[in-house]
């Protein structure tokens, strides 16, 4: 009897969750589907679901018009680069905040977060002028640095919350054993913080991959990532739903696939210290 009830409950939960899940996913599914239609089919009335002539034409057109591999590589370099650089700066900072908290630690942390609230458009011209004077317009280096700075507060905070969960006694034991600061971080702390670091890395790659203001405004041809690639399909003359869908699919597929494969790691660490 009780078993039957749980079984029934499980079925209802399954049904509800699948319905909602598919509804949430539907726009992405529809974009991918449309990318395989012809332009006329893409706006046909009534819309066609699966029974249409599948075509790869749009992907061909997009590939011919844009240098997708270049944009893709730029996106990879910029998002990975800024994440790595961010980690190098943030790990020591988060470590010391978590284990040697001072009176103002909390304030410093909150101040760092508040820098993220600055509207980027307000400082575009100054940053543009600085980049020009340094000669780094349209360079990946500039984007790596800018995106590192933008995401640094989030990195520091995420790491800080993980580090805080690590019991201090373990570190003290290590210190007793004569571990230096360096080896303390390297051999004791880091392994324990791996899930946290992993999800920090993933979240930052996602944020950097999707950042569309600086990446569009500080680049031209050489360093332009996929966000700029999308901007050339956004509203051209003529029918464009299918081509837009193909370009969109190409722009989001890498990060979507990465996200799906690593979702366990992402979820495990994505708590910002919210779980206690």
């Amino acid at each position, binding site marked *: 009897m009780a078993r039957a009830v*749980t079984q029934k409950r499980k079925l209802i*939960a399954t049904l*509800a*969750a*699948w319905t*909602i*899940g*598919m509804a949430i*996913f539907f*726009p*992405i599914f529809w*974009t991918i589907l449309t990318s395989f239609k012809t332009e006329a089919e893409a706006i046909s009335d*009534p*819309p066609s679901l699966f029974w249409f002539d599948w075509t790869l034409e749009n992907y061909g057109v997009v590939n011919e018009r844009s240098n997708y591999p270049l944009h893709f590589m730029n996106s990879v370099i910029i998002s990975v680069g800024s994440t790595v650089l961010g980690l190098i*700066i943030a790990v*020591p*900072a988060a470590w*010391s*905040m978590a*284990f*040697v908290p*001072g009176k103002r630690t909390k304030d410093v942390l*909150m101040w760092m*977060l*508040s*820098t993220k*609230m*600055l*509207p980027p*458009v*307000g*400082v575009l011209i*100054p940053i543009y*002028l*600085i980049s020009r004077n340094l000669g780094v317009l349209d360079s990946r280096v500039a984007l790596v640095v800018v995106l590192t*700075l933008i995401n640094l*507060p989030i990195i520091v905070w995420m790491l800080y919350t993980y580090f805080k969960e690590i019991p201090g006694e373990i570190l003290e034991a290590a210190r007793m054993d004569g571990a230096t*600061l360096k080896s303390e971080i390297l051999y004791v702390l880091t392994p324990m913080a791996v899930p946290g670091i992993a999800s920090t890395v993933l979240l930052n790659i996602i944020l950097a*991959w*999707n950042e*569309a203001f600086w990446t569009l405004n500080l680049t031209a041809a050489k360093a332009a990532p996929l*966000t700029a690639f*999308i*901007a050339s399909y*956004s509203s051209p003359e003529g029918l464009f*739903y299918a081509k*837009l*869908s193909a370009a*969109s699919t190409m722009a989001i597929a890498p*990060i979507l696939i990465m*996200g*799906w494969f690593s*979702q366990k790691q992402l979820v*495990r660490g994505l*708590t*910002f*210290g*919210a*779980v*206690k």
Partner: protein
Amino acid sequence: MSTQHSRTAARFMIAPATVLLLGWMLIPLCMTLYYSFRRYRLLTPDRTGWVGFRNYENFLTNPAFMDALVNTLVLVLGVLIITVVLGVLLAVLLDQPMFGQGIVRILVIAPFFVMPTVSALVWKNMFMNPVNGLFAYAAKAVGLQPYDFLSQAPLASIIGIVSWQWLPFATLILLTAIQSLDSEQMEAAEMDGASPLSRFWFITLPHLSRAITVVILIQTIFLLSIFAEILVTTNGGPGTASTNLTYLVYAESLLNYDVGEGSAGGVVAIILANIVAIFLMRMIGKNLDA
């Protein structure tokens, strides 16, 4: 002695992050402040000079400013309410035993990986377009007049799009928090005959308060500077119906090419963001230390 040593080391380790962020914040901020008191129009760069508070006056007396302020608040609050409420419900649902939980979770988190520009373009053209969008087809299929989302309810439409992007994030954090809930406590409550609703209200929800605070904090940071979605879908219109502060600053500095007034707007936006920040920090600080 050892503490002294590690304190120095700690300062040393915080330094790079602090100095960099300080530089990142101060250098553009100082330049923005400087420009905000000057006449600097990109298209007539030869006519410059100090203008006192003229730029601030223009920005603050612009009728669009109040609209933008209200829109910003509505946008942030709207998305927060939707994502938190739906996020809690969805998290509770996903926590139930079911078939194919992993796949459902993948479906639910997918929107989080989509670039804001892409999601705005897709929603605008393929769903909300009143002639060729899917919603219009659906309306026509059941005999209704297609609704013109982006001109009749621009801000609500944008709230919808942004909520779709952020719902996965809220759901994920809340789900993690729910999963950490002590199941013994739940079972004990069940034994005592507490209804599912009261169990949710008295046990689950209080347990989630911390996670909800975190969701609010992180999302507010990103929602205050929503920009791409507005640029792509409505250009802040019709009128100023969907202009938020970020978009207004953009319009001044890059559509009007008035860097002076844009900078003044930037400074105003920074001040307002900091007020929100202080308010949030108070709230968070209380909740996070507890």
